[in-house]
């Protein structure tokens, strides 16, 4: 029983991290029709900058804020420099964002050195609680809570605020949103920056969770996020949460019971979804 609970918590925590990455990806895809292959690079930058800020100030709060700011700045640069020139051309988008992914992850090595870096868990969040036989690692619970919080905030923004309404309307019909007097390009930029910030947040939270960070982690997690976005339905926000949890749990249980298949199971999940339900489990309504 305690094993199941541990695997569950583990899977949920991983799922939430993937969700943070996938949420931005799916928003950007849904609104801008851009598949950002560089998204994982922003995640890795969040992790590295967060660890760097943490080392500097010894405050995890500063680390999180620093990572989010890094994400916002990189998001701004990416949208202006990389995405804007290739709106509407899918093949170019795919090619160029992948190229930028490489630049981002190589730049990490230039700035922070080519080696793995150890990441510490902040003292307040390290350790665990024991409830009977069940050991609950504090940090994992923290990640889950942050994930739920982020999901809640975003659901609120999307459903209840004017800007959320505009984003949802933009997903359905960009031209019409402009014809109602809204600067959709501005909205694109903000959404991209927010997506990048979410990815960076995922990165900084990931660092103490895995203990080490390395440049390639961006690509590894991006693949998981792609899988999640496909399974959840491109452009669907709740879909990406559900799929992220699914992938997180599948990974966690498989890693314990059938370790050889742990990565493969996600790919198979995606392949099955793509073949039988190419639009994903949820669809962003249009």
């Amino acid at each position: 029983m305690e094993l199941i609970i541990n695997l569950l918590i583990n899977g949920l925590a991983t799922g939430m991290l993937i969700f943070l990455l996938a949420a931005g990806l799916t928003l950007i895809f849904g609104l801008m029709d851009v598949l950002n292959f560089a998204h994982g690079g922003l995640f890795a930058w969040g992790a590295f900058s967060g660890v760097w800020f943490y080392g500097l100030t010894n405050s995890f709060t500063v680390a999180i804020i620093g990572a989010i700011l890094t994400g916002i700045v990189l998001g701004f640069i990416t949208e202006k420099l990389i995405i804007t020139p290739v709106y509407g051309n899918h093949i170019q988008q795919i090619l160029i964002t992948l190229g930028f992914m490489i630049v981002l992850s190589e730049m990490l090595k230039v700035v922070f050195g080519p080696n793995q870096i150890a990441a510490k868990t902040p003292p307040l969040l390290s350790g665990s609680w024991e409830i009977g036989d069940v050991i609950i690692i504090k940090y994992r619970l923290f990640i889950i809570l942050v994930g739920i919080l982020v999901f809640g905030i975003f659901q609120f923004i999307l459903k209840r605020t004017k800007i959320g309404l505009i984003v949802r309307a933009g997903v359905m019909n960009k031209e019409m949103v402009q014809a109602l007097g809204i600067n959709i390009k501005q909205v694109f930029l903000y959404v991209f920056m927010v997506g990048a910030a979410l990815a960076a947040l995922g990165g900084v939270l990931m660092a103490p969770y895995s203990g080490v960070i390395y440049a390639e982690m961006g690509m590894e997690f991006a693949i998981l996020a792609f899988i999640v976005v496909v399974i959840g339905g491109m452009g669907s926000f709740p879909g990406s949460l559900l799929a992220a949890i699914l992938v997180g749990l599948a990974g966690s249980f498989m890693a314990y019971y059938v370790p050889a298949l742990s990565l493969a199971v996600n790919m198979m999940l995606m392949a099955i979804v793509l073949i039988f339900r190419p639009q994903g489990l949820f669809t962003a309504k249009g």
Partner: protein
Amino acid sequence: MSILLKVDNIHTHIGQYHILQGVSFEAKEGEVSVLLGRNGAGKTTTLKTIMGLTPATSGTVTFLNEGITKNATHHIASNGIGYVPEDQGIFGALTVEENLKVAMRKENDAARERQEYVLKLFPDLKKYWKKEGGHLSGGQKQMLSMARAFINDSKLLLIDEPSKGLAPVVIEKVMEAIIEMKKQTTIILVEQNFIMASRIGDTYTLIDDGETVQSGQMSELIQNEELKRQYLGIG
């Protein structure tokens, strides 16, 4: 009456196609100007060009004595031009309320007043206030789209074929609404249904093959059998 919008010899390319090849006309304040012409003549593109959705490659569009040819769509809209596209452009997953809310740029008393006004004009919208736009009937979508364009302080409405695909009874309702809205604002209407066009239009502009062929008072066109036969396939 003053000229609200002036379109002067606009040419528009979409991709490699030269769609508009010289469209000119004027819309006077308080009037309904109708763009006529057969399928593919360039009427819809003319509206889109005014809106900045397919910007003109040459020629000028002047609105309130200000050149808006190269302006971004959202600027043009916030300057006071409302757009009702051919497919109505309803946000399907948003409710009627939300559709109107997205459009409302300033939530002040004036806007609320206008909202009250359109809800009186289209009581159906009030009835289906919480219904998703995608589940409305064709006529209701048309009404919602018109309400949405009107709700801001739009000095000019561009309405693209409001009668398209609607049942005759509904067309009648839409027509009445346009006649009512005319009291408050200026309208440019694309319409292929000539009976409808001739009943509400003050002036007409005949477009064919992307070019203005003839403009004038609607009453003149009603008499001109030759023109109607040649360009509208009627008479």
